[in-house]
């Protein structure tokens, strides 16, 4: 006697595609947020003349608790020079821009060593400020 083999169709449910894409996106967003500094708490100082800064590979930030961050990663004061140097690598002069974001109430005790560290490794400091409102 001949037995017929039953064939069943097994398709990937296309209904779930949207959810998969959504979860993937959230995963990459969280991953990207760990590398930027938009989640850090700081208030820029104000100045009368400011210009739009271009794109920079490196951003050094001092938050409202006087903690140092290089591209969103917390570092110690002594590590700033090494981290910035590693990120800038062999970038030619003129393109070694480093965004310097400092909380307006941060004290010289904290921001001066960071300025020194950046200029020590040949970084061009761009103070990130906001326009002074009259």
């Amino acid at each position, binding site marked *: 006697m001949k037995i017929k083999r039953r064939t069943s169709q097994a398709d990937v449910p296309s209904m779930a595609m949207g959810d998969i894409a959504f979860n993937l996106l959230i995963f990459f967003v969280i991953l990207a947020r760990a590398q930027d500094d938009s989640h850090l708490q700081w208030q820029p100082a104000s100045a009368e*003349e400011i*210009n*739009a800064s271009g794109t920079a590979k490196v951003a050094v930030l001092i938050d409202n608790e006087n903690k140092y961050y290089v591209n969103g990663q917390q570092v110690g004061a002594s590590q700033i020079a090494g981290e910035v140097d590693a990120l800038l690598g062999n970038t030619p002069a003129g393109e070694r821009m480093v965004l310097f974001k400092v909380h307006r109430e941060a004290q010289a005790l904290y*921001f001066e060593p960071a300025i020194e560290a950046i200029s020590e490794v040949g970084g*061009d400091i*761009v*103070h990130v400020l906001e*326009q002074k409102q009259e």
Partner: protein
Amino acid sequence: MRERRRRKLMVEPPSSATGDIAFNLIVFFLVCASVQPDSGRQQTLPRSEQETQEQSENIEVQLGRNTVMLNGNILRQQDFDTVLKRALNGKTRQEDRVVIVKSKPDTPYHHWVVVTEMIESAGGIVTIQTEEEQQVIVPGG
């Protein structure tokens, strides 16, 4: 004759599209958030070799919590600009236009930014000098 009732159809929005809508909304907000550029002021600090040359001739600015001193004289912030311009007047060489900024540890960043902006707009070249550890040699020790 009895009229036939029109059959009412329930029309639901296609639920399979909600995922795509959410995806596109997130992409839209992400793009909006990422195009805000930072703005600020570029500052080039001279290398240490330059500041050691003829240090005595350089203008020295000392900053406190909310005070500013120019070559040892306490000034009001609004007068600082005028006095500094006068001090820089006639100095044509780049090394003579170097202004050494010494800040007390409690000097806030917003005060430092205002003063260094004044120095740069007056034609000065800002350089910072931090308090360095000094080695004390005790005689006969």
